[in-house]
């Protein structure tokens, strides 16, 4: 059997995991691309984000802010730890994708504690390789999203359009596929939710038919006395809905300008399976557009979470608190995307400040490694060995020139100095920043 080119395996792991690690390229080059993909698709998430139900709102505004900031740090660290330690990297990539897709901006010091974020994550993680309709159904009564988009105060007789609009525009259809009337009618269909405190102190978003506007509504051309779940189905049944998700998946996993034929195929697949994610993802990664089209190689910029988690996994680090801070330094606030549209991918990560931050984090990680190395990593500063550890299969001449210059100038220095320098430069290289 002909071995799969290592570059193909590196490509798959960059997109469907957090990068290939030491040995991955060799193992799966032998076993083949399909075996690698099936291993990734069969991963079962093994971790959970932990939050607290401690009510943040207390009398003193200052302590509220501090408590909120602490809860945020804790829950960010918890998420980063799950990603670094996971044995189901594709499932975790999907959690990250879904958290961006259903962007929920948590305000520390808000009346809901970080427990609500943990609950949303648990829903996304449970269904990360499951069913998209189930995710949407669950999110209708999700405390974090419901409060963020004001569906907890979307009242009978005086609807609040926030959730209805963003669901049509961002989550399910896309701009231009609905009218302002659809927004207003869908907002009516989403009335009836109320935030209730449970005996254990946590919050629950409860739907109460008596608080719901049960009059007839016309949404996307269909008329009925739709409940929230029925109205959700009306939107999901629109042919654009499956195309929209397909387009988002392909833009995220294949390339920013999603090839339209692949989008159509994946959309049809989602319709045919009733929104099952595994077959859709298998189709994405098995496609010629993903595997064979040079335009899809190195076409993306790793998000800060992908970059930091990838480096942590490659170096087998456990400094999760530092790592969570680094994700922030690189420009991505987990649980605090800039707005309901989520993070700005690719070029959005290339600000001057963020790129120097990538260098600086590379330098810190390299120092941690030489001070206290984890087992099973290359000893010394052999560039090829470290490329393998970082899932890099080729170096551009400029990067090679930079490394050569460094090693020439530092020849004869202590091995730890040179090792630290090589790790820093490889992690700071454009090769490691693209996927």
């Amino acid at each position, binding site marked *: 059997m002909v071995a799969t080119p290592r570059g193909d395996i590196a490509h798959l792991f960059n997109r469907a995991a957090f990068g290939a690690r030491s040995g991955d390229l060799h193992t799966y080059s032998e076993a083949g691309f399909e075996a690698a993909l099936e291993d990734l698709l069969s991963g079962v998430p093994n971790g959970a984000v932990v939050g607290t139900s401690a009510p943040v709102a207390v009398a003193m505004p200052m302590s509220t802010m501090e408590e909120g900031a602490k809860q945020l740090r804790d829950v960010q660290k918890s998420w980063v730890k799950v990603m670094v330690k996971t044995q189901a990297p594709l499932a975790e990539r999907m959690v990250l994708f879904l958290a961006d897709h259903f962007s929920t901006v948590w305000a520390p010091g808000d009346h809901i504690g970080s427990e609500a974020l943990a609950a949303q994550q648990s829903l996304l993680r449970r269904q990360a390789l499951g069913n998209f309709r189930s995710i949407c159904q669950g999110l209708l009564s999700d405390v974090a999203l419901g409060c963020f988009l*004001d569906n907890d*105060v979307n*009242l009978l*007789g*005086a*609807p*609040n*359009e*926030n959730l209805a*609009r963003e669901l049509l*525009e*961002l989550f399910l259809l896309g*701009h231009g596929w609905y009218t*302002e009337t659809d*927004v207003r009618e869908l907002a009516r269909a989403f009335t009836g939710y109320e935030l209730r405190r449970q005996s254990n102190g946590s919050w629950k978003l409860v739907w109460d038919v008596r608080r719901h506007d049960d009059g007839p509504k016309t949404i996307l051309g269909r008329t009925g006395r739709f409940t929230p779940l029925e109205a959700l189905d009306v939107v999901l049944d629109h042919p654009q809905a499956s195309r929209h998700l397909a387009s988002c998946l392909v833009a995220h996993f294949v390339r920013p300008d999603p090839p339209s034929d692949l989008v159509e195929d994946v959309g049809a697949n989602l319709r045919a399976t009733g929104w099952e994610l595994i077959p859709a993802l298998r189709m994405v990664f098995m496609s010629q557009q993903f595997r064979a089209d040079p335009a899809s190689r*190195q*076409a*993306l*910029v790793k998000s800060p979470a992908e970059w930091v988690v990838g480096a942590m996994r490659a170096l087998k680090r456990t400094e999760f608190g530092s790592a969570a801070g680094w994700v922030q*330094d690189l*420009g*991505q606030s987990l649980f605090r995307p*800039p*707005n*309901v*549209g989520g993070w700005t991918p*690719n*070029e*959005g990560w*290339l*600000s*001057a*400040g*963020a*790129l*120097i*931050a990538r*260098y600086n984090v590379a*330098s*810190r990680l390299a120092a941690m490694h030489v001070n206290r190395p984890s087992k099973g990593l290359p000893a010394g500063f052999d560039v090829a060995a470290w490329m393998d550890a970082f899932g890099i299969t080729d170096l*551009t*001449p*400029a*990067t090679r*020139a*930079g*490394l050569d*210059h*460094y090693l020439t*100038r*530092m020849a004869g*220095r202590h091995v730890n*100095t040179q090792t*630290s320098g090589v790790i*820093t*430069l490889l992690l*700071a290289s*454009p090769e490691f*920043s*693209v996927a």
Partner: protein
Amino acid sequence: MNDLSRRRFLQGVLAATTVPLWARLTPAWSADSPGRPDAHLLVIFLAGGNDGLNTVVPIGDPAYPRMRPKTGLRADEVLPIGGGLALHGSLTGLRSRWGAGELAVIQGVGPTVADLSHFSATETWETASPTREFRTGWLGRYLDASADRSRGPVRAVGIGPVMPRMLSGGGDPAITVRSLSDLQYVDHGRVDGDARHEAFELLAASGRAEGPMIEQVRAAQRRAIEVVAPISAANAGNTNEPGAAKTVAQLFGAGLGTEIGFVTISGFDTHAVQRGAHGYRLAELDSMIANFFAEARRLAVDDRSAVLVLSEFGRRVPENGSDGTDHGHGGTALVVGPPVRGGVYGNPPDLGALVDGNVPVTMDVRSLYASVLEQHLAADAEPILGGSFSTLPLFS
């Protein structure tokens, strides 16, 4: 590394290559010709859709309390500016600017076609291109068009994690940082510090902004590396993080050629319980403007500085059932500063003639931009905006 050793290192390393990389690595700017632009512009974008009606309040209009029974402001919560109008009570600094004749209020401004999406409306404000004939930002196009006047390595700065679209163009991109200290290496003291930084510079040396993504990354790295030294110098006097507005003022005064700054304040999407949250955000805006001018004054660049306050849209006039307001259309922009000719511009919102509950847009964003470009930045607005638009006499 000093200039001489840097030059020697680059020449040594690059001598073997045929492409004169050295030339490309030499910044056009040098410390001998500090950049001192004639005008500075700070754009503050109020993200989420600022309620223009509760920013500059039609306090004299009897329809206002009727349509805003819960979110409306009472007479004792506002700062009158005459003509039946008043500023939100949080805007005490701006009220002083009004008194000094340095605050222009522009009403009913926005994208002429109603679009209640945050993202689509924001894009129109950023690109000044309702039909999307431009994908770049209007200020990015200004920077491109005036590139020959460029005197300095940092003509524009965005504060935040992501480069503002408004500043994106075809030339050397604006510098985007959360704070100036982002642009400092953490490993200066190491025995191999210089060697690493040289290598990092080389590794990024051949970047080009177009082409494959890996080259775009390299180009962005190169741009970042280029400004590490000048930005560090500009930041040298700060012992604490100065905050966004002060940072922009410091760059305006740093002699790096910085003309444009961009800052976002989020939290204006007040669908629910608007009253407290909106006042808090406007107080943040007010103190941001005050901090900016205090620092600009200290550095003697305040007399050439103007602040432009924008938001993607105004909010629905009738409030919703959750003590908030949904997305609207026409909004209110502000222009502030010593060069500004204070006053109220545009048509005041007619609460008796709303369209779907929204204030209609009676002034195209491009008229506002044309005024800023021509009167403040001394630029030819027509090629930048892709057409000719009437202007307002906003600057003296």
